Each structure stands twice: as structure tokens, then as C-alpha cells.
């Protein structure tokens, strides 16, 4: 029996285990939406802007480890996905973005709602496809999912013209993707692993530097085993938070531009740096010649192009982080505490703790700490927008488990948090999902409150509202002589009324003594989103702060 391309696409998605897609209809995807109308096996979530669909699919993928799927029509629908695709690309998130395209005879004619989305997305996808013949559809979908989730994960765009949706095929789904030019190397070279084991046993001041790769390869337990077996202090990138318990005595928290002082000092002073699924981003390294200047560097990564891209590496190991760590753990000899080193780090921790002044207004750090106390022991996922809200949350919330922290790292996309929280809540319906937002970023995808309300998602949105585009203001204060050029957001709308208009529960909090009760109240609401507008100290800064271009041990601490 022959079925249509649209029907075949849904069969492919079901074969890949897809349960949910986030999308928005339009002209050329009508044949697909007509099939979705009858579809029982896949849930379609109607967003209110295609960017929301991409971020929701991304948040879903980050929370669950599965491939997130989003769907948009041709032209503007597809281009609205672009920021979301780039966000997923920079953070190596497995995602499939399906876009409708004008019918093949109309391609290249500047037809209505035509945009060359495969051309547009080349720099921000792991791969993309334009399906010109319905017969290729099952094979391409199979390949796309394989590419998105294997090796270093990433987004794949599948562009499907209208007449491919309506074309007919005899459907059969391939068991395996055969791509002769794509064979990710997952197993680390045994000789390199032995060399690394030797370095680890000789090191006197080792530090593990763990990135998002440890989370995407589900290697948290291996990170912990190696750290504990050899007593190695562990620092994490923002993307790596949760890969190693933040409350563990060996945890140094986050490093880099807004990292803990003791983490940056430890990296600067260490004699061996073990980079695990991390990519030496400029927000981590600061001035590169002064980054870990005394250290030999072991770099474990599944992507060979990351090795030596930003820093020189002494022992590269290309392979899946989990596989490599497993073998490394077997080969390393257990080590007692490096007494002097650990003592030194303890001293730094005592002398330069993460801290803020509790007086002078409502402090965002306090709100984050209070919320953590409230949800301790409960399954919870913390999301953020981008800016000060993100950095305070990364610093003050102690993540103990992977996939409980969802934030746009590489691209730094304002407006990511709310739709990503929606996606995470769909993926983890029983978890408490909270989005720490800023008063700037929350408005960038505020329309996604509708998606949350319509689906009765009990997400919590905590706006750390300082009436400023806070992080930019901070840079203006510290680097641009307090020239607050276009960062004052005092003419914002009343966010409580906005949230209520959307059908969310909302209130405003201005005093520290009201924080606890408001947070508790937010947890009692289970049938719709909650927004709390916290009027925080206006000019509170994120410290430590390494000014751009400086070495990471040259930070402004307060």
C-alpha cells in the first residue's frame, strides 16, 4: 500500500521513538498538519512563535537526553527557527528541525514564503537536507536522527517541499543509517589513555575541567569515579554544571569569567589539567597564554576538531567521554589525597568564597539559595535566560545531578529560558521546573506563556527584575564609565499583569522577608505557570568578574 510523504514522515518519527513535536502550522505544511489531525501516537504542541518551538525542543532534549523535534512552515516559519537551531548547535544538543518548503517546481523562483533554509542554516547545523524526492524521505530521516544523536550531537534540518508531503511511496523504514563519509570515533586510543593514566599518577596538583560533553555522553558517574579514585578536584564549565555534584567536597564549582575565585586559582596553579568534554571557550580561558600556564593538558573529546583548536594539548584523546573515562578509571592507580594541594584549595575556598552582601535591598543570590532549600531532595530542573540571572543561578545553585540545569551557553540566547522550561516540563512532567529570568530576556519569548497555560504546565518563572539589562549595565558600569547606554528598562510593562493576562498566576515581591512565602506559594500551584516578579537590588553585580582579555586569576572579586 502506498502512503503519502506526510504519513511516511510521521511513521519515521514514531520509528525513532519521537513522542512529542513542537510546531506551528503554515501554508506548505498543511498536508502534514492534516495527517497530524488524526495522529494518535505523536503529541503536537502548538507554540506561539517558531523560535519557541526550537527552544522547547532543545529544552526537552537537554532534560531527557532524547532528540528534540520542532516543526515550522517555509520562509518566515523556517527563519524563525534559526536562533533556536544556532543555540542547539553551539551547545551540541541533538535536535531535528523539520521545515516545510515550497513545492519543487517553485524552488528558486522567489515563490511566496520561500527561503533557502538549507543554505541559511549551513553554518549552524551538524547537517541538513532538502528532500527533493519522496522516495528518499525514509532514508534521510533515518540518517538525520543518526547524525543528530551520534558522535558530538547537534541539530539537523530536514527541509521538505509541499509536493514531497503529498507524493506517494511504498513505505519501509531502514534499520540502520549507512553513511560512508560519517563514522564518529567513539573509542579512545589505548596508548593515549595509558599515557593519560601515567600523567594522572604523577601529578601533584591535578584539576579536572568538565564540560557539557560529560553530560551529553551521560558520563557523570564516571567523572565522579575518576575524581574520587584519584582525589582530583573538579571544576565545571557552565555547560558542565551537574556533571559532578556541586556539593561534593572535591567540587570547585564553575570556572571562568564568572567562576569561583578558588576554581580559577586552582586552574592557574595546577600541574595537570584534565579537560573532559570541554572546548576551552573564551569565557572559560580568559587570556589564553595565562590559562593553566603550569599545566600539562589532557583533552578528552569526541570531536577531533576541538583538540588543539584554542589551546595546545599534551595528551589528546579522541573518543566518547564515557568510554574513555571507563578505561582511564581502570588504568589509573588509586591515589591518596594530594595533601598539600587539597589544603591549598581549602584555604582558597575559605579566603575567597562566593559571597554577596545580604543588606541593601533584595538580593538575587538569596532568592536562588532559598529556592534550592525549598526543593532540596525533590526532582527539580533549573532553567535560566541569559545574563546576570544566568550567572547568579550558575554560581549559587548547587547542581548535584546532570540534566537538571538548562541554559544557553555557547550562543547566549536571551529568550531561551521560558520555551526551554516548557520543553523540559513536557519531558519531565513530574519535576519542578523553574526558570530564573531577567526582566529583559523574559520579554523576548513571553508569548510562550500561552503554550504553558494551554498545556497546564506548572513551570515557575522567577524574574530577577532590576529594571535593567543587567549584565550589559554591569559592563557599562565597570568598563564604560557608567554610561548606561540603552540598558535602562524602567518602562517595562507590569509583568504581573502581563502574566495574569496570559492566564498564569503571578505576584510581585519586593522584600527579602517575603521571598520564602512567595516561593512556597509558587510550589502549591500545579495547574498553570507561575510568575514572580522579584524587584531586586538594581545595581547588584555578578562577582567574581574577569574582565575580557584578562587572565582568569586576575578577577574582580567584589
Amino acid at each position: 500500500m502506498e502512503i503519502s510523504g506526510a504519513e511516511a514522515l510521521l511513521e519515521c518519527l514514531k520509528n525513532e521513538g519521537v513522542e512529542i513535536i513542537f510546531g506551528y502550522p503554515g501554508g506548505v505544511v498543511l498536508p502534514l498538519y492534516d495527517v497530524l489531525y488524526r495522529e494518535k501516537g505523536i503529541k503536537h504542541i502548538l507554540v506561539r512563535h517558531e523560535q519557541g518551538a526550537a527552544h522547547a525542543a532543545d529544552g526537552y532534549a537537554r532534560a531527557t537526553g532524547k532528540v528534540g523535534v520542532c516543526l515550522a512552515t517555509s520562509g518566515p516559519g523556517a527563519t524563525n527557527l534559526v536562533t533556536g537551531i544556532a543555540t542547539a548547535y553551539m551547545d551540541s544538543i541533538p535536535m531535528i528541525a523539520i521545515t516545510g518548503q515550497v513545492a519543487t517546481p517553485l524552488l528558486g523562483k522567489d515563490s511566496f514564503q520561500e527561503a533557502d533554509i538549507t543554505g541559511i542554516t549551513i553554518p549552524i547545523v551538524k547537517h541538513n537536507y532538502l528532500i527533493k524526492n519522496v522516495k528518499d524521505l525514509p532514508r534521510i530521516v533515518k540518517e538525520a536522527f543518526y547524525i543528530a544523536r551520534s558522535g558530538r550531537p547537534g541539530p539537523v534540518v530536514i527541509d521538505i517541499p509541499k509536493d514531497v508531503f503529498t507524493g506517494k511511496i511504498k513505505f519501509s523504514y531502514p534499520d540502520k543509517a549507512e553513511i560512508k563519509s560519517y563514522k564518529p570515533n567513539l573509542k579512545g586510543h589505548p596508548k593515549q589513555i595509558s599515557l593519560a593514566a601515567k600523567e594522572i599518577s604523577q601529578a601533584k596538583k591535578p584539576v579536572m575541567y568538565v564540560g557539557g560533553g560529560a553530560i551529553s555522553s551521560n558520563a557523570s558517574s564516571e567523572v565522579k569515579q575518576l575524581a574520587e579514585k584519584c582525589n582530583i578536584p573538579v571544576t565545571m564549565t557552565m555547560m558542565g554544571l551537574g556533571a559532578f555534584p556541586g556539593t561534593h567536597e572535591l567540587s570547585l564549582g564553575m570556572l571562568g569569567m564568572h567562576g569561583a575565585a578558588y576554581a580559577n586559582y586552582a586552574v592557574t596553579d595546577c600541574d595537570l589539567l584534565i579537560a573532559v568534554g570541554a572546548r576551552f571557550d573564551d569565557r572559560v580561558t580568559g587570556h589564553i597564554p595565562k590559562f593553566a600556564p603550569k599545566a600539562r593538558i589532557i583533552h578528552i573529546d569526541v570531536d577531533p576538531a576541538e583538540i588543539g583548536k584554542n589551546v595546545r594539548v599534551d595528551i589528546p584523546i579522541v573518543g566518547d567521554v564515557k568510554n574513555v573515562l571507563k578505561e582511564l578509571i581502570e588504568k589509573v592507580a588509586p591515589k591518596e589525597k594530594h595533601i598539600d594541594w587539597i589544603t591549598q584549595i581549602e584555604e582558597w575556598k575559605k579566603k575567597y568564597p562566593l559571597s554577596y552582601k545580604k543588606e541593601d535591598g533584595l538580593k538575587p543570590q538569596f532568592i536562588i539559595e532559598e529556592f534550592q532549600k525549598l526543593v532540596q531532595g525533590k526532582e527539580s530542573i533549573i532553567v535560566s535566560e541569559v545574563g546576570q540571572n544566568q550567572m547568579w543561578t550558575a554560581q549559587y545553585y548547587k547542581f548535584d545531578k546532570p540534566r537538571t540545569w538548562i541554559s544557553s551557553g555557547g550562543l547566549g540566547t536571551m529568550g531561551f529560558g521560558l520555551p526551554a522550561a516548557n520543553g523540559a516540563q513536557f519531558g519531565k512532567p513530574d519535576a519542578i521546573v523553574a526558570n530564573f529570568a531577567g526582566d529583559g530576556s523574559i520579554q523576548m519569548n513571553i508569548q510562550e506563556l500561552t503554550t504553558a497555560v494551554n498545556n497546564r504546565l506548572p513551570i515557575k518563572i522567577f524574574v530577577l527584575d532590576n529594571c535593567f539589562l543587567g549584565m550589559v549595565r554591569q559592563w557599562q558600569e565597570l568598563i564604560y564609565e557608567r554610561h548606561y547606554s540603552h540598558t535602562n528598562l524602567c518602562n517595562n510593562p507590569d509583568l504581573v499583569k502581563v502574566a495574569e493576562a496570559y492566564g498564569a498566576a503571578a505576584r510581585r515581591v519586593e522584600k527579602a522577608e517575603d521571598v520564602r512565602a512567595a516561593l512556597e506559594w509558587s510550589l502549591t500551584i500545579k495547574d498553570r505557570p507561575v510568575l514572580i516578579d522579584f524587584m531586586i537590588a538594581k545595581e547588584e553585580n555578578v562577582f567574581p568578574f574577569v574582565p575580557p582579555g584578562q587572565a582568569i586569576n586576575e578577577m574582580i572579586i567584589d
Partner: protein
Amino acid sequence: MKHTISVIVENKPGVLSRVAGLFARRGFNIESLAVGITEDPSVSRMTIVAEGDEKDLEQITKQLYKLIDTLKVFDLPPEKAVERELILIKVAANEKNRQEITQIADIFRGKIVDVAENSMTIEITGDESKVKGAEKLLTKFGIKELVRTGKIALQRGSAE
């Protein structure tokens, strides 16, 4: 330093744009690029001449491998490769200098492929220095138009 890089790719629509875009995006200038199918029609070979140091070459090679359609990438150092380029030069010519132009073409084992009242078009094939030499000598007649294929290259002896 100049590098000649051979990139073997799947012969699919859009591959050229992926490869060329990658060079631009990562900050490598392409000096020349020649592309065509190989003995296997499903596979194309691109010969790209680009400027960069060893570190740049390593990074661009790795980035090229990240493209799903890339099968193989290798550097072709001049001592290990046979290199050719073809150029067509249209020079201003008249009855008086036609003889001289023909002689120069002969010296470079070039071919006269078109003769008109006011011009001659010469085809020259060779490595970079030969082609440059011919171009230099023909300049004095006045070059009206010039086109080059870009360098193509193969490893000497048995492949690999």
C-alpha cells in the same frame, strides 16, 4: 604558507557551498578551487589552494572532516604531487607581432586556440611557475582577457 589541499567529497548538490563556506567562516582565504567528479561519479574531488600555517591546516582539515559529505582530506606538498593549471590568455595581436606571440606559445608548449584580426588566444598548461612565466612574457602585447582553471593536483606514485 600556501597549501594545496585535496578534498574528496560525496557528489551531492550543495557540497561546494558547504566546503567554500567553511573556509570563509573559519577565516581561511581560498586562492583557487577546482572541482569535478572522479573515476567514481558519486564522488568529487576538490583541489583547494589556501594560505595558512601548519596549525591552520590542521584545524581546517579537521573542520572539513566534520562535514558529513567529506570522505577524505589530504595536504599535497609540492614535492609529493603533480600539479597542473590551465590558463587561456587572449592577447592583443596584429600582423607584426603574431609571429612572436606564436613563438612564445611554442616555448611554453602552449596552443593557439583562437586567432582573430586583433587578438590571439593561447592555451597554456603547466605548474604554477610555467604558467606565470608565460603570462609574464605575454603581458607586453596587452592581455585583453585571462581565465585560469585553478590548480589541480594528484599525489605522485601509488596513492597513499
